[in-house]
């Protein structure tokens, strides 16, 4: 199936570039390391064979749209397409600049979970067949079912099909039903305050402030991020635990009501920190208190942007 997707993406990109419908095409090319793919920008229709799609395309290509003024062709699965919608609503790109090639997605593979499953032996090759995949390394070969090794956000995804597109390369896939997306958030809500603080302190203990999470996130497009300000300096730049907690807390808060849970932040963190625990709480509140999920429609403005008389008010004295 992935091979068919790849073929269709290449054909579509070639035609778009040849017909001059887009100036550039953004997609993925196969990585040089197993389970990794590299985002690529194609300008020449003869180079479309670089394009590739499989279940290791877990970054967010919408990140590369910010500030572009040319006409862009881009592949987008469910969550990525919702980020594109948010980008348009927030005036970061215009709809008519884009040709969105929609990709129905059954989820990306969590490469760290797979590494754990093979006890950290080095994986040299991965091959997908149907709903499973096989990994090979020195002296070992194991097959797994994809549904047991999905990225955290993919396992609870209810928007697998693109919400906005110019063409779909395949039939829509079935959306997941009855998913308990916020079970982990609820577990934390049940803890007492002392335990909660301990949980979150331990979560970000390893943070080295590389900002991969912020840079991979399509929502983080501020010309100067609050952590980089120096007059006034809101947050210190060292690895001090209070400063680090402040960074994660406020970054999550800046994504409130906008995050589509694409999982790119967790995927790119070199220290393997599960920072979706910050944004998931806000997504849950967004849903419970404002009945809002980001990026589903181009017509509505997000709740933090607009006043409605029936807005949630209980927390205000």
């Amino acid at each position, binding site marked *: 199936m992935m091979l068919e997707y790849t073929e269709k993406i290449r054909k579509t990109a070639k035609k778009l570039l040849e017909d001059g419908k887009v100036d550039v095409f953004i997609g993925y090319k196969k990585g040089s390391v197993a389970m990794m793919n590299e985002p690529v920008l194609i300008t020449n229709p003869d180079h479309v064979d670089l394009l590739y799609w499989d279940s290791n395309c877990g970054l967010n290509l919408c990140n590369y749209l910010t500030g572009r003024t040319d006409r862009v062709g881009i592949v987008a699965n469910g969550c990525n397409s919702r980020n594109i919608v948010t980008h348009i609503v927030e005036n970061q790109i215009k709809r008519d600049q884009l040709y969105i090639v929609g990709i129905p997605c059954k989820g990306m593979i969590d490469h760290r979970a797979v590494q754990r499953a093979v006890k950290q032996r080095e994986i040299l090759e991965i091959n997908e067949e149907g709903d499973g995949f096989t990994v090979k390394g020195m002296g070992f070969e194991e097959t797994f079912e994809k549904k047991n090794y999905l990225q955290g956000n993919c396992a609870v995804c209810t928007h697998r099909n693109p919400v906005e597109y110019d063409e779909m390369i395949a039939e829509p896939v079935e959306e997941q039903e009855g998913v308990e997306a916020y079970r982990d958030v609820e577990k934390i809500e049940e803890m007492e305050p002392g335990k909660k603080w301990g949980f979150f302190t331990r979560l970000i203990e390893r943070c080295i402030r590389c900002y991969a999470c912020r840079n991979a996130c399509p929502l983080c497009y501020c010309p100067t991020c609050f952590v980089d300000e120096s007059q006034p300096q809101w947050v210190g730049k060292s690895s*001090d635990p209070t400063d680090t907690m402040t960074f994660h807390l406020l970054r999550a808060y800046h994504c409130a009501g906008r995050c589509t849970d694409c999982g790119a932040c967790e995927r790119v963190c070199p220290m393997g920190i599960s920072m979706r625990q*910050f944004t998931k709480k806000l997504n849950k509140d967004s849903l419970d208190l404002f009945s809002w999920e980001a990026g589903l429609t181009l017509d509505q403005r997000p709740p933090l942007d607009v006043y409605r008389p029936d807005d949630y008010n209980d927390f*205000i*004295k």
Partner: protein
Amino acid sequence: MKGLFEHIGIEPGRLQFSWISSAEATKFVEVARAVAKEVKALGPAGHLIKRRAEVA
């Protein structure tokens, strides 16, 4: 924001919100006194307070 602060373990009651217009001076005084009293009762804040940088 209140939800997120409480979620990470800051005691409920430290961060409070109120709508007060500039014409509601009496309400402002009442709310300010009440919040100050409640927060004082929680004791010194232990979390998200930076003293000297904890570095090598």
